[in-house]
């Protein structure tokens, strides 16, 4: 779950990490009010959960409260990468001496968290790593005792700081780690983390992605995710609420399968045969019929879908349950799009019988089924 910049900055401030003075606004007049309390010039930032917001015009500057109002008005009436801007964050523009990077994420191979810092910040860390790999400082975090103040000082030293700045910067890094752990962040970064002209450090921008699997420990954010704005489309949100993994894509073959790997491979196979998947949808293991029906409803709510490809390999999932779900959906949702169904595994015979009785043809080979789905999806093109 991605946090909005204003949410992230509020957390940082709570932990004593300096951030620019600022406030949230949902209207231009409110933006003016917020700006009037700040020392100009100010920065006006669209609160949208997309990467590359700056380049997409989501960040404006103003040298007075009035200008801030105008800028806010502008932002509140545009879409950033297709996302309407519902709120903006107005903050004082800080006098930057140097842009740095610091973040904490997971290291799969070492099964641990890793702290990454760079004396060259302001761009994506991958970009920094590609351009100036020698400037990227990595430190594996021992889970037994975490990222300690001496680790933070080590990194500050390697970022080129000396004297009091070592401890000053160290404190900021250590606190970010604490936030990461306390909030179960799978990624937390300050980018840019800036050294100001007076030699202090502040998080000019920050990104926090919470571990979805740990949201049960962070109910306030879970609530916001389920009830408020988020980076999820309505379909993705409904899928999530029902424990379905759904990702919207830009093709026209709706895909439903069980198991993430199998569904990914299904998309790949569709693409291999020249088709374009409209989505990824994993019904998960052991899905009951209602879940299959709901999955169909979600996939069909995408107007681009021309054909449906259901690919089930029953392990825990029982083919007969899936078959019943399909019929249920056909009845309730009214499936008008052509369906290609591939159904093998546990209770395969019963599943096939149910569908065949209902006049639905079932295939056994995933490749054959994929080819068939691609064919159907292209029929309209001719």
């Amino acid at each position, binding site marked *: 779950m991605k946090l909005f910049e204003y949410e992230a900055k509020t957390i940082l401030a709570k932990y004593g990490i300096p951030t620019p003075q600022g406030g949230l606004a949902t209207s231009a007049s409110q933006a003016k009010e917020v700006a009037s309390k700040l020392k100009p010039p100010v920065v006006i930032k669209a609160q949208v959960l997309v990467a590359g917001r700056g380049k997409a015009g989501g960040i404006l500057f103003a040298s007075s409260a009035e200008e801030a109002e105008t800028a806010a008005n502008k932002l509140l009436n545009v879409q950033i990468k297709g996302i309407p801007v519902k709120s903006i964050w107005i903050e004082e523009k800080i006098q930057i001496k140097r842009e740095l990077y610091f973040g904490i994420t997971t290291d799969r191979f070492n099964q641990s968290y890793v702290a990454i810092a760079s004396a060259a910040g302001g761009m994506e860390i991958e970009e920094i790593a590609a351009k100036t790999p020698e400037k990227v400082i990595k430190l594996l975090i021992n889970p037994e005792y975490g990222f300690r103040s001496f680790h933070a000082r080590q990194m500050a030293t390697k970022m080129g700081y000396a004297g009091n700045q070592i401890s000053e910067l160290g404190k900021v890094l250590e606190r970010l780690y604490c936030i990461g752990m306390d909030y179960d962040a799978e990624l937390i970064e300050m980018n840019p983390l800036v050294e100001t002209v007076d030699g202090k450090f502040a998080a000019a921008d920050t990104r926090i992605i919470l571990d979805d699997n740990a949201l*049960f420990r962070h109910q306030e954010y879970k609530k916001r995710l389920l009830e408020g704005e988020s980076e999820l489309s309505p379909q993705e949100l409904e899928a999530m609420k029902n424990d379905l993994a759904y990702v919207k894509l830009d093709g026209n073959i709706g895909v439903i399968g069980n198991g993430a790997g199998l569904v990914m491979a299904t998309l790949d196979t569709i693409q291999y045969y020249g088709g374009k998947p409209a989505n990824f949808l994993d019904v998960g293991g052991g899905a009951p019929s209602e879940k299959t029906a709901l999955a169909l409803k979600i996939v069909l709510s995408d107007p681009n879908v021309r054909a449906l490809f259901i690919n089930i*390999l029953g392990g*825990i999932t029982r083919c007969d349950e899936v078959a019943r779900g399909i019929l249920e959906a056909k009845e309730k949702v009214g499936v008008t799009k052509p369906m290609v169904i591939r159904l093998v595994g546990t209770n395969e015979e019963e599943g096939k019988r149910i569908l065949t009785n209902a006049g639905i043809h079932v295939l056994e080979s995933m490749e054959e089924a994929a080819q068939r789905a691609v064919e159907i999806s292209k029929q309209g093109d001719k």
Partner: protein
Amino acid sequence: MGIVIDKNTRALVQGITGTQGSFHTKLMLEYGTKIVAGITPGKGGTEIHGVPIYDTVEEAQQKSSADASIIFVPAAFAADAALEALENGIKKVVIITEHIPIKDAVGLMAIAKQAKATIVGPNTPGIVTPGECKLGIMPAHIFKSGGVGMVSRSGTLTYEIAAGLTRNNHGQSTCLGLGGDPITGLNFIDTLKMFASDHQTKAVVLIGEIGGNLEELAAKYIADQKYPKPVVAFIAGRSAPSGKRMGHAGAIVTGKTGTAESKIEAFRKAGVSVAEKPNDVSDLLTKLI
């Protein structure tokens, strides 16, 4: 033979009375797995499918002396259950549970490393040494004993490929699911090492997917070590967009890292045959052995 588990493995089931725990205990018993005890706090003293239930692993171990455990308990308590197994001397732990928080998994793996224990999963279909022992939720009938070691980050995709292998008479030594989470107990390299020294294993099928760089590291390992057995790889997620989690917590392309292309290229460079489609794995294998 095979790796991690064999016909002598004595296993506990933690969370044996839940829907999944109970269902799969039955299937594992039918497969011939020695399930010596089950754990469900509060249900101690009863039994299920003829397996005695204990409140704690400690009690179970006093009676059953198991050497492995398979965990079905809910995500919020699964890392705790694994620790309970480790603390009571169990060195092989299979965690079926999905959705375990990263922080819990990181903590668990550090302790497992110290205990020199093997963790399979979390978010894994488990592990099966066909004809000997199954500690997992995979359908039994698609496997048969043979010389192919399988290691995968995925469940059903593995079944898909395993079924294809079995159809084409490529039996399996052991089929092991690493798990679909970003933090798992074993990685590809660990498993490749085990297959390298397993006499039954003649070739390895490696099923990867987008996210992370464990496949790239495995490719490098294969090339650097001149891996002694033929390897066929399949990577799922060529069509996955960046920044979106494809079902598995671990299946996500971040910026330009973790793409299928990168992994496929790494394997090709390492001289590993990479299948275009799941069905092609069997054919490639036939060519190699």
